[in-house]
């Protein structure tokens, strides 16, 4: 199980900010600097075969962008993505085809990620044909089997997405992802839009399918309860950077980055008698257009020191397989 399925090395993704024609022209005339969103900045991580890596962080911290870069739905600005031993970061569209099937994605919003004009059976059939797994009647039969695997019934093949409830739509999205026998699935907030009673059903389904088909997940969520439940290891993102990663156990019982500490302390506990030592941060999450210098978390950090304002902390291993990017864990003059 120790073999790596995914290795991400120094991944960077910048988006230019679209400002329209006037800005474009004036930037040409006045040599104004082009603005870019630093969505993902120098992220390195790996995912072992058969494990679930949970990715947490606040909205806009770059979680989805990272997920999409890893499976090459969008092109990274720089950095390496190694999938099962092959560097896929520079593959051209046609060379990528072979890998497309192996890497699938489930999106947050089951309503907008399904084409309303195609019946569920046809959608799955097309998917199977596109990836040359099977075709025609065989594909349709296979579609029925897949629907059963995700807890729907064979009769559902003729129905259209709008005829399903939110939870059922998410099941269809899952069916589409597993239809082509992938190795790796990026699940981007797959239960966030669902009610709690339905959320549990979908989480169970995802865990079941993982066992059954030996899948590897990158599970993106802002819900720490869900992350804790489903992940083997966890990576915490803040403003485009991974600030801490380690086993779920380490992250939840021994959070080391001040941001992770605040995050975990703010998880509301469903017990009126629980003791709460909440760390209340000050200020807003800064914009990723102009991330703070030095450590990006320093303006909100309760332990901020002089050097945090200037020097960006590197990741260090604080205990086995537990990495943190924070000056608190460096000796005074190191770094």
């Amino acid at each position, binding site marked *: 199980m120790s073999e790596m399925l995914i290795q991400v090395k120094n991944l960077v993704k910048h988006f230019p900010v679209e400002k329209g024609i006037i800005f474009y022209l004036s930037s040409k005339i006045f040599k104004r600097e082009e603005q870019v969103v630093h969505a993902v900045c120098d992220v390195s991580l790996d995912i072992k075969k058969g494990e679930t890596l949970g990715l947490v962080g606040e909205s806009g911290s770059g979680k989805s962008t990272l997920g999409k870069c890893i499976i090459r739905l969008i092109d990274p600005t720089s950095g390496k993505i190694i999938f099962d031993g092959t560097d896929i970061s520079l593959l051209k569209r046609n060379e990528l085809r072979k890998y497309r099937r192996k890497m699938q994605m489930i999106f947050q919003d089951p309503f907008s990620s399904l084409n309303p004009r195609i019946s569920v059976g046809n959608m799955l059939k097309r998917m199977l044909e596109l990836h040359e797994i099977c075709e025609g009647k065989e594909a349709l039969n296979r579609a029925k089997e897949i629907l059963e695997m995700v807890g729907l019934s064979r009769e559902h093949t003729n129905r259209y997405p709008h005829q399903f409830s939110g939870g059922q739509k998410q099941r269809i999205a899952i069916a589409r992802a597993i239809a082509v026998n992938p190795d790796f699935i990026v699940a981007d907030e797959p239960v966030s839009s669902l*009610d*709690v*009673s339905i959320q549990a059903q979908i989480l169970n389904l995802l865990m079941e399918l993982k066992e059954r088909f030996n899948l590897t997940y990158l599970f993106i969520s802002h819900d720490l309860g869900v992350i804790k439940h489903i992940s083997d290891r966890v990576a915490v993102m803040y403003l485009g950077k991974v600030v801490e990663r380690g086993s779920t156990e380490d992250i939840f019982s021994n959070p080391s980055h001040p941001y992770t500490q605040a*995050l975990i302390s703010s998880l509301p506990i469903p017990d*009126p008698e629980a003791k709460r030592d909440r760390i209340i*941060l000050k200020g807003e999450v800064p914009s990723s257009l102009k991330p703070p210098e030095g450590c990006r978390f320093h303006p909100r950090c309760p332990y901020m020191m002089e050097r945090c304002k200037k020097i960006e902390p590197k990741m260090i291993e604080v205990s086995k397989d537990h990495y943190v990017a924070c000056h608190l864990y460096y000796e005074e003059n190191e770094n």
Partner: protein
Amino acid sequence: MEVHPAGSDSFFYEKRNLLRIENLRTYFFLEKGTVKAVDGVNVEIGEGETLGLVGESGCGKSVTALSLMRLVPYPGKIIDGSILFDGQDILKLNDEEMRKVRGKKISMIFQDPTAALNPVYKVGEQIAEILQLHEKLSKAEALKRAKEMLDLVGIPSAQDRLEDYPHQLSGGMRQRVMIAMALACNPKMLIADEPTTNLDVTIQAQILELMKELRSKFSSSIMLITHHLGLVAEMCDKVAVMYSGEIVEYTDTKTLFKAPKHPYTQGLLKCIPTVTGRLQSLFYIKGSIPDPFNLPSGCRFHPRCPYAFDRCKTEKPELKEVAPNHKVSCHLYD
């Protein structure tokens, strides 16, 4: 039933009731049929008390809140019931009288801040306007107060922010501006509809802290609407659980978490991921919420209930006190 001193006939009779909703029914009359969004709701909130209103999407939480503000949108209509606020039925007030209540005595943090803030006015002007209307302050005084309110809700460089339009603020800031607006006139009653749902967790923690602070400063009552049971555990004195337009369980927070009685409440509490051991299969409630145009007969929860028996299919259970301070609508407790 026992008789308690006047004005305190709720089962939480230690505190004087500020708000009492009786048999509220708010329906939407659509072409396709009638949606019974709120269908016979009874709750009360004491002074300085926080009531949690919980339930899944579409169960009628927001419509209950909008009914209290008398802001139910067309084609919705309050068709029955009374809403006694400080002894007065606000459903009987005329529009002019209602305007005086809204924002001054009862104010609301809306689920969607963009709906509450007017995009074409500066933030400062919007807060000042409420103060001018209710507190009869001059524009200059009102703007000064507005700045103080923004300070209070933790908005940095508040003076400059007064000049901003809503779209210039981040989501967390807009939420705080709305909270500042809602609290500008020290309302006796604050309705907070999912006040933190769209916010990042660390910002969420900041806002909750703020609500607690304001509660202790002005001893306002709060109705906190949420689907997040963790929030309820932390913030509320008592809880009403809603399902399909009705209250199915109503008791103090401790009892609800320790000894929930309605099978729906029990299910909701059991499916929280952190309650189950890691990587284990989660408990879930089978099926999904009922179609509002095609409500189940008898108890609306019966098709999903693990304990349903014949009577549940035909006879609707009433919300009854089954233990001291504990109301449940379920035939299991007859």
